[in-house]
């Protein structure tokens, strides 16, 4: 049944006032009490309790008053006045009781409805506040994640930096120790070259002296060949010394990574120095081709970028299953420095391509790689406001492309 909401103070009809009472029983009881036929009818005669047929013409009518108004009539044929009045009173009490029930129930419905609406309103308010807190919580999670990423990145760089620092210290120490002997070896070699001239000057005198014992000994010792060969030996040794000196210089360049000062460099020099450091590994597995276009001087952390180039170069070498080609190209495109490392190696399977920059992701055997090389490389490039992309075809080769902005003066400073 639908809940009525007429209002507790609405006017009530006789029918409503007597609605809880059995008409048959009430009529029967009244008939016995009054000793004759009775009929209860509404004031406008529209409703008759128990559909009792009209009584005789001489029936008496007593008003039934509720809420100050005559709501209906009690009709009786017989009965004395006092009894009739008492019966009317009885009916009025019943009506009052009915009204009391009606008003209480209506009020109850109103109150329940109001309470429910209030509850709904609070529920909506609570939902809104919950949504606010949920958004806050989600935001918080996002922010925590960002912080964790930052810390993670810093940790990786710290790890790499420490590794590089220890390698750098070693390299710097070795370079320093080698430089001194190299210095006097070079000096001695050039002195030795001047000594050969002196030998030459006395050689003619020895050969033309006519002293048989002396010329015999000269020829026995094959001194003509010695004098011929000696300068080229010294010359090759000088070349070797120069190469050692160059490698030491390049090593010193890499040993600078822990002093992360920005400097203005030509990135092509960094590329060449990386190639020199890796020359041994590269030459045994691949042919290296450099196509270095002219680059404007760049303010950057050169040691870090050199490390990136070395990483990419060594990765390319490791990708060579048979002897292949590694090509490094540099240049300026669309106002940005572009450096490409292409190899003809095994390529990267598409399923792992999206993960290669992930920290600690490695395809190498446990212990041989940290899985941080590309991650740190990307971190370094990002810190220089640049980006790094990879394009790979399985069994055809891989190309890493680095983009760096020309002028970093107006961009954010790197985190490294």
């Amino acid at each position: 049944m639908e809940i009525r909401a007429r209002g507790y103070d609405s006017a009530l009809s006789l029918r409503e006032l007597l609605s809880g009472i059995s008409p048959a029983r009430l009529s029967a009881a009244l008939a016995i009490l009054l000793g004759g036929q009775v009929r209860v009818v509404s004031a406008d005669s529209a409703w008759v309790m128990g559909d009792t047929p009209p009584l005789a013409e001489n029936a008496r009518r007593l008003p039934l008053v509720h809420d100050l108004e005559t709501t209906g009539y009690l009709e009786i044929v017989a009965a004395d006045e006092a009894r009739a009045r008492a019966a009317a009173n009885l009916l009025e009490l019943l009506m009052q009781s009915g009204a009391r029930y009606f008003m209480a129930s209506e009020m109850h419905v109103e109150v329940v409805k109001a309470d429910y609406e209030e509850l709904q309103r609070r529920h909506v308010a609570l939902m809104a506040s919950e949504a606010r807190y949920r958004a806050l919580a989600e935001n918080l999670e996002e922010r925590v994640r960002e912080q964790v990423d930052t810390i993670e990145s810093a940790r990786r760089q710290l790890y790499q930096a420490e590794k590089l620092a220890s390698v750098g210290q070693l390299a710097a120490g070795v370079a320093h120790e080698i430089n001194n002997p190299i210095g006097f070896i070079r000096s001695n070699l050039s002195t030795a070259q001047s000594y050969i001239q002196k030998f030459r000057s006395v050689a003619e005198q020895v050969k033309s002296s006519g002293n048989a014992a002396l010329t015999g000994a000269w020829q026995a010792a094959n001194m003509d060949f010695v004098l011929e060969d000696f300068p080229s030996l010294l010359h090759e040794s000088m070349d070797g010394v120069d190469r050692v000196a160059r490698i030491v210089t390049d090593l010193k360049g890499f040993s600078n990574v822990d002093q992360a000062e920005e400097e203005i460099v030509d990135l092509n020099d960094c590329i060449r120095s990386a190639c020199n450091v890796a020359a041994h590994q590269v030459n045994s597995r691949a042919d290296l081709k450099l196509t270095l276009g002219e680059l404007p001087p760049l303010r950057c952390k050169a040691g870090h970028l050199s490390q990136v180039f070395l990483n990419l170069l060594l990765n390319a070498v490791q990708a060579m299953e048979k002897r292949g080609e590694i090509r490094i190209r540099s240049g300026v495109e669309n106002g940005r420095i572009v450096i490409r490392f292409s190899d003809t190696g095994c390529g990267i399977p598409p399923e792992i391509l999206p993960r290669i920059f992930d920290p600690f992701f490695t395809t190498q055997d446990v212990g041989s790689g940290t899985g941080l090389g590309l991650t740190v490389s990307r971190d370094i490039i990002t810190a220089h406001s640049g980006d790094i992309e990879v394009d790979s075809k399985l069994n055809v080769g891989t190309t890493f492309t680095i983009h760096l902005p020309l002028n970093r003066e107006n961009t954010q400073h790197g985190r490294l």
Partner: protein
Amino acid sequence: MAELDETTRKLTIKLVYYGPAMSGKTTNLMRLHDLLSPDLKGEIMTLETQNDRTLFFDLLPLGFHTPSGWLVKFKLYTVPGQVVHDATRKAVLSRADGVVFVADSQRSQGINNSESFQNLEDNARRVGLDFGTLPIVVQFNKRDLPNVLSEEEIRGRWSAAPWPLVMASALTGTGVRETFVKLLEAVYPLLDRSFSLSEKHGVSAKAFIDTVVGEQLGNPR
């Protein structure tokens, strides 16, 4: 707002006794039932719990006929004072034509009185009654008890308020009729403006009040 029924020629006026719990609202109604002798007086209907606390409301119907033959019916309601019955108070207060605020004069009841009065103001706003024009009479009840605020204190505190103050002792009947009369005086001008009581129905302010209260100058019929 009073309800006008053209077909049955009836004007129904709703008056509400508001106030904190146990301040004597129901007692006021009972005394009025005894004291007043209007044309028409119904029985008090009470809807209380077993311990005589009002659950929903009490209702006392009063009425008289105007010279024009209309029935003017007053429905006097009380609200339940207990804080939990706020939804009921709101329902009873809706469409009220006037309010008697029954305050408890005992010194200990100051906070309850002010909270209840604040509640009256809040609920009046919620049910769409203009608190600025709503006829209100403030009755300080229980004057017969010891340890009550003195009349000077009360009048001092309420001096800035625009509503009439009546000192009463509903238990003995003192001030009950006076409170009711003050409310009728405040309600009449508004009713007269809306329904032309004086002009169309021949009911002056004095006749209006006297007839309801049952003075000898009552309904000429």
